[in-house]
């Protein structure tokens, strides 16, 4: 049963948008930067000249690297401690495609030029919920730390609108590896894990991640082993806990903190994945109702 405020929100469905928005969109001139004022031919000349310079420089490097009788040989991509990317309105360049996990997570050094109000986003291919964005905590570019699971991931840049430069959906791939053994794996032992999640608890809530797990994850057994996983040092978005039963990992949960009304740290099970049939789920009492997550 929904509450009064929910019914009020649903009334928005009866509000019809202003007619003609699509026609307005189709009739708008392309937005652009000052560069777009150049005639197309001039732009192409500049692009051609730049391409030629890049080609010659790359050729020179290639000659140095692969000339006859040289002792240099092919090497595996080196592992970097920092994910270095370079973004501009037309391209994204991943300078270090293989990155080592650090104790507090993935270190990202973003060099963003020409994009107003940029956002640098990161997303793990193994966890669609892992989307983490640089602008959400005020860090636009420069160095920031995010915690993503090991494996393949993507990074993307978007520009803001203030210079009239349309955002690009630019993305690049990279891989997080763990040569130093800092990462505690929490990959489920089963396939097709089910997404579960909750919300902060009204009137305070758990004061530690462990308390949040204990009070909000239902279906666990006394013999289950619950322990910290992922990165050992805390950083956004928050600590991960894994739940093992009979030696198999059957669930993991992200337990971030949030300040209550008095500014004290509280925790909640934001989301996680559990094995089908494990009986695990997140259940939070919300006032006179409840929310089983999703």
């Amino acid at each position, binding site marked *: 049963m929904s509450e*009064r405020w929910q019914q009020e929100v649903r009334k928005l469905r009866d509000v019809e948008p202003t007619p003609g928005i699509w026609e307005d969109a189709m009739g708008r001139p392309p937005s652009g930067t000052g560069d777009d004022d150049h005639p197309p031919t001039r732009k192409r000349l500049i692009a051609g000249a730049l391409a030629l310079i890049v080609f010659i420089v790359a050729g020179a490097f290639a000659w140095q690297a692969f000339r006859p009788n040289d002792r240099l040989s092919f090497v595996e991509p080196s592992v970097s401690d920092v994910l270095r990317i370079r973004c501009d309105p037309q391209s994204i360049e991943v300078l270090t495609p293989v990155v080592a996990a650090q104790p507090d997570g993935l270190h990202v050094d973003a060099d963003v030029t020409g994009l107003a109000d940029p956002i640098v986003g990161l997303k793990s291919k193994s966890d669609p919920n892992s989307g983490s*964005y640089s602008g959400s905590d005020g860090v636009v570019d420069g160095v920031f730390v995010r915690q993503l699971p090991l494996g393949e991931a993507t990074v993307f840049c978007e520009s803001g609108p203030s210079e009239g430069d349309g955002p690009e959906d630019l993305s690049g791939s990279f891989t997080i590896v763990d040569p130093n053994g800092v990462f505690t794996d929490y990959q489920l032992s089963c396939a097709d894990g089910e997404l579960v999640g909750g919300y902060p608890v009204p009137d305070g809530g758990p004061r530690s991640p462990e308390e949040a797990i204990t009070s909000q994850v239902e279906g666990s057994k006394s013999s289950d082993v619950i322990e910290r996983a992922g990165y050992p040092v805390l950083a956004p*978005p928050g600590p991960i806990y894994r739940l093992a039963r009979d030696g198999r990992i059957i669930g993991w949960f992200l337990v971030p903190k949030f300040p209550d009304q008095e500014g004290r740290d509280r925790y909640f099970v934001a989301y996680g994945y559990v094995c089908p049939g494990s009986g695990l789920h997140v259940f939070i009492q919300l006032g006179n109702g409840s929310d089983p997550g999703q």
Partner: protein
Amino acid sequence: MRWLAATMIAMGGLAFNEPSKDDTGVANEVAHDLAQVFREEGPGMWRTMLAFTGGRRDIADDVVAEAFARAVQHSRSIHDPAPWIYRVAFRLAREELERDGQRSPPFPEETGDLPDVSGLMGALRQLSPQQRAAIVLHYEADLPVAEIADRMGIAAATVRVHLFRGRARLRDLLGREVDEP
């Protein structure tokens, strides 16, 4: 060096070629797809922007149109149009509100055609823009948290906090009890 000359010519050709008919065909096809995206997502996006701006129909109209216009312009590099267009619209709306110098603008006179939601808009304006957006996307558009995060450009955990705080505030402002049928 013949191969070098041939490669340079090929590169020059790529740089100087005019768009072909095939390119135009692809562009039309993309525009057609975006029209479909507009039919499916446009009304919900507009309502979200209406809520995000606290009832500013003028801004909602403008940013949705502008976001779709930019999507058409950049359609070749967009992999997943709906979240992309939402993120652009959010940023445009945020900038419009900042340009007006007020995060929670007064209830505009031109929304007199929204009498049924005037109470809701009054309550929403007492929430932060992020809270308004999260509430509307979740409870009006029925989107799951992960999709809201994708569309707002923030982490899923942050969305849940916005939902929690927005929900608590709306409960205070609009009431918890349910009307009898």
